């Protein structure tokens, strides 16, 4: 395996340090325990947003730190949630007196460590609320599993809640908004090949040349099924059908935000080809793509694949989506 690494166990530290070095105007790095805050944190009187998760999904989450989005991000080891004391320290550093919103993707490790951090913060009188993102329709939501995985909707929750916090909404309102975005979003991913974890140097799974993993997770977890490879339009329609089938029939009307996310090795051309079909198919189903995001925002190392996320918009959500944001990965309106 040829990679631009120095040492497999240093990839996270070195990558985060690199971003902090090239964006001193935007980011401030605290090395131990490791977290990254926006350079002007804490912002007095504003709700702070803290997220985090395993590394290997760049630009998420450090790439979303800055005005209009996250106050702090806690990168864990590759595909491993951050520790509770990373989250606790980050929350302390960015709390501007208006409380801290914790945005958590629904994986056992993330849920437990953020929960421990919230307990530690509560003991010190720092108010927190948690928004749990669980939008992956590939996974059955039942009492017999740990529930749905959190995927693409995380980016949308972070952007929209960040805008509301910047406008001065209080903690309860920002949390409620986050839950609303999560509840109105559905996602599905598919992989043509797996990502390779630096520590092992081996792909997480192996697919035949004519095979795809339909419903893949962002850590290479298996999805709904292995299927034959098909042209981009057919795969796009198949993924969209799974996403749309998960909404109630009477929800399938009006404006949506379409998020076409490359999982690491999909080229910009491939993402655009998928987006082309998705906009048309959604139109045929009576849904207007009023906002969109297309590119690599939540990757799975070098996985070749895409995920599709549909968020049912309303005027309020569209306005907050359009609000200014200034981060490494998302930047507009300023």
């Amino acid at each position, binding site marked *: 395996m040829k990679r631009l690494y120095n040492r497999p166990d240093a990839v996270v530290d070195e990558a985060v340090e690199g971003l902090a070095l090239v964006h001193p105007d935007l980011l401030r790095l605290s090395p131990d325990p490791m977290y990254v805050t926006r350079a002007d944190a804490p912002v007095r009187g504003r709700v702070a947003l803290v997220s985090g998760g395993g590394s290997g999904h760049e630009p998420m989450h450090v790439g979303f730190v800055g005005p209009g989005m996250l106050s702090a991000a806690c990168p864990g080891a590759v595909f491993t949630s951050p520790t509770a004391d990373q989250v606790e320290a980050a929350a302390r550093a960015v709390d501007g007196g208006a409380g801290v919103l914790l945005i958590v993707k629904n994986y056992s490790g993330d849920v437990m460590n953020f929960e421990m951090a919230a307990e530690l913060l509560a003991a010190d009188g720092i108010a927190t609320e948690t928004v749990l993102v669980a939008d992956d329709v590939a996974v*059955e939501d039942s009492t017999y599993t740990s529930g749905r995985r959190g995927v693409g909707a995380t980016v949308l929750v972070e952007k929209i809640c960040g805008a509301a916090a910047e406008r001065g909404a209080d903690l309860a309102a920002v949390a409620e908004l986050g839950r609303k975005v999560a509840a109105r979003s559905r996602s599905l991913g598919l992989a043509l090949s797996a990502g390779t974890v630096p520590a092992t140097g081996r792909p997480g799974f192996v697919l035949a040349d004519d095979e795809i993993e339909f419903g893949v997770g962002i850590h290479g977890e298996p999805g709904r099924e292995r299927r034959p490879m098909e042209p981009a339009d057919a795969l796009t329609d198949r993924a969209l059908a799974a996403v749309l089938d998960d909404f109630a029939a009477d929800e399938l009307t009006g404006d949506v935000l379409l998020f076409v996310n490359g999982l690491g090795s999909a080229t910009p051309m491939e993402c655009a080809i998928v987006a082309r079909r998705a906009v048309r198919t959604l139109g045929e189903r009576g849904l207007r793509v009023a906002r969109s995001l297309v590119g690599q925002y939540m990757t799975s190392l070098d996985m070749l694949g895409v995920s599709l996320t549909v968020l049912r918009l309303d005027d309020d959500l569209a306005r907050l989506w359009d609000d200014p944001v200034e981060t490494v990965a998302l930047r507009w309106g300023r």
Partner: protein
Amino acid sequence: MSEELTGADVAAVFHRYAKTVAELKDLLTELDTAVGDGDHGTNLDRGMRAAVEALDAGTPGTPGAVFNLVGRRLVSTVGGASGALYGTAFLRAAGAAGDATGLDASRMAAVLRQATDGIAARGKCAAGDKTMYDVWSAATEAVESAAAGGTGLAAALSAGAVAAAETVRRMVPWQARRGRASYLGERSVGHRDPGAVSSQALFECLAAQAAA
């Protein structure tokens, strides 16, 4: 054979465990790649190396102090579900051990009970979910019933290790209901759970130390 584990003995248990985890690292990673995301061996090894380093830096105090130090190091270095679960278990164990200078069979049973209940509370898991909790629960029950019957510490912990190993084997055909393996649904059947295997190793280290 010892009928009581001192703080130094508990520290020795964790030295044994760190060595065992380093040896099991590849196996744990392989088991976790099949049902999860393949990081259990690497993560637990990183945490136990940090824990042993912290133990070596100070003089061992009471058993409670040793559990506390190890729990804190795991919580702050491991991340993931295993850091939270093992960390919580040892921090609860520390609370149960209190200021006692030695743990005999009945005290050890009480310590393991608190740790096991901590895992259930943190992981929101129950018996039969096919997680490390099943192993902790079975091993703790075995230690409790041996202690209640007046058995000494070494025999009680040996019963715990046997129950742990039996449970790991018994769990293989189960379907996982919590944790990342639960996403596999029926495909989790037939696999050994990596957290169960690393837990079995801990109970074996406890038994080995008491037998030494």
